């Protein structure tokens, strides 16, 4: 099909804009990886060097020698996955009860839960820190895990999902003699798998990336989560940018893997959390 010059110009401009934006968004990733593989004297080379002829993994070895990054990663993995699993179980239970079970006060409880969404984290930061200190949880996994679990948002989304399950499915199971718990476990929960997967990605990323609370609650060297670890490494290694970039690459490998393998779910979770809010 022939295109008019005007159309060709339009398409060219479109591609130009799209590509420039792509460079802006992907560039920092490329530069981070590139710099992490360079020797120190090439970091600020002029003109910039994209692929160093002296390419090596030395910076990564150095990072692990200088700071316990394996420990930071372990802490983040443990905290993020525990929070995700426990939160999903509890939120599914609460969401199911609020959607499908009749009991006195249900509406009131639901409104109460939803209104906690208005409370911003920074307002409760100070009391939460004092509470955690009172409990003797500072610099423990408890401090990192337990306060991160309760969140109205997950309850709300699972409730919305459970509201949409056809009554027939439940009735069929009830006639077969299933208890309410049985219906939840054998009928509702399997249907909720896609929603739970999207929420799981969301919870995991949110906890892996969280910074302010881990900074306040667990800043002792062996209890740091990876974001706090990066921050302290940056503070201690001033201008060793090749090492700081290597540390950054280490910190985002898990999220990048998650991003590219589960992109569909991530996009779903963004749409879900974004729309109809």
């Amino acid at each position, binding site marked *: 099909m022939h295109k008019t010059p005007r159309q060709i110009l339009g398409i060219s401009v479109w591609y130009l*804009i*799209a590509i420039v*934006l*792509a460079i802006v968004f*992907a560039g*920092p*990733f490329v*530069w981070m990886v590139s*710099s992490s593989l360079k020797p120190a004297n090439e970091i600020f080379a*002029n*003109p910039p060097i994209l692929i160093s002829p002296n390419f090596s993994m030395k910076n990564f070895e150095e990072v692990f020698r200088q700071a316990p990054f394996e420990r930071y990663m372990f802490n983040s993995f443990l905290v993020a996955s525990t929070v995700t699993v426990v939160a999903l179980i*509890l939120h599914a*239970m*609460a969401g*199911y*009860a609020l959607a499908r*079970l*009749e*009991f006195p006060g*249900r509406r009131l409880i639901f409104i109460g*839960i939803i209104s906690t969404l208005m409370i*911003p*984290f*920074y*307002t*409760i930061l*100070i*009391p939460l*820190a*004092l*509470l955690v200190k009172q409990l003797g949880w500072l610099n423990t996994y408890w401090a990192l895990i*337990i306060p991160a*679990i*309760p969140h*109205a948002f997950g309850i709300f989304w699972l409730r919305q999902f459970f509201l949409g399950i056809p009554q*027939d*499915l439940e009735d*069929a*199971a009830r006639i077969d*003699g*299933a*208890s309410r*718990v*049985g219906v*939840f*476990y054998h*009928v509702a929960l399997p249907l909720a798998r896609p929603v739970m997967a999207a929420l799981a990605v969301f919870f995991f990323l949110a906890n892996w*990336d969280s*910074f302010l609370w881990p900074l306040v609650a667990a800043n002792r060297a062996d209890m740091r989560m990876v974001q706090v670890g*990066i*921050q302290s490494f940056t503070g201690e290694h001033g201008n060793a940018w090749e090492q*700081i*970039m290597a540390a950054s690459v280490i910190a985002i490998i898990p*999220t990048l893997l998650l*991003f590219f393998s589960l*992109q569909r779910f*991530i996009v779903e979770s*963004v749409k879900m959390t*974004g729309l109809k*809010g």
Partner: protein
Amino acid sequence: MATTKPTTVEAPVRGGVRGWLGRLSGMDRDRLEQAVVGYAFVLPDLIGLLVFIVGPMFMALIISLSDWKLVGEPQFVGLRNYETIFKDPKFGAALGRTILYTISFVPAVYTLSLGMAVLLTRRSRSNNFFRTVYFMPVAMSLVVAGVIWRFMFDPGNGLINELLAAVGLPTSQWIGSVQSAMLSVIIVSVWKSAGYFMIILLAGIQDIPGDYIEAAQIDGANRRQVFWHIILPLLKPTSFFVLVILTINALQAFDQIYVMTRGGPAYATYTLLMYTYEKAFREWNFGYAAAMSVALFAMIFVLTLIQVRYFRSGEVKA
């Protein structure tokens, strides 16, 4: 649509409670079971929310009414902390910077992400590729984003300055100077968020029925007219949501600022949350910091109400 799709459900093992419930009549038994299971299912999350969110919220109010420092007993001082806030020039300045950050960040992200969503509305392979690329910063934490950009914004030979110099544009001190530090922080925040909100706006645009757009095109509307008169008005609920979330996010920006500038140089990026954090966890002045956090909460609350009002009134007009 109610389906009558046959399902196979294994009958679960009868629990102990069921045996006890068996003695009640059918109707009562089911109501009791629903209540027992209902409360048991809601309780763990409810306790969690009460202990770790609602309780601390009330605690914040109480702490804000007291003189509470690291050492010594907390003392009730009434509204004195709030009076101090009004007289504190550092609070006023931090509030000003927070507002400056917000009114730059929110329109910038909204415009950019809407532009990207419009650019990539059509479903095609190349659009999918670009979407993935624009969305990539979502895979990165704000901390890492801040670290990388701090490196690229190096006032000496950072990548950005070298690229600017290469094409003959003036270089900048970026996070190194009072004039440009805030701009640098805003650029990073916009870069980090645009792809995320692009996905939300894109979903909103794709929800608009194709018929509307086709009808307008048959009536001779060009692309620009379709955007201004069809897409933008119909996208209003999504836009509203995005703007509210962006404003709330902007007023609590912390990670990237902490990592890039720590509020400097010379307080140029010292926002309210930075100030609150330092008051609480550097100066250990919990009372005053809590009062500031409550004040910030009140501001966000009022601002959100205004935004809701504004968009509601717009709906009536449309």
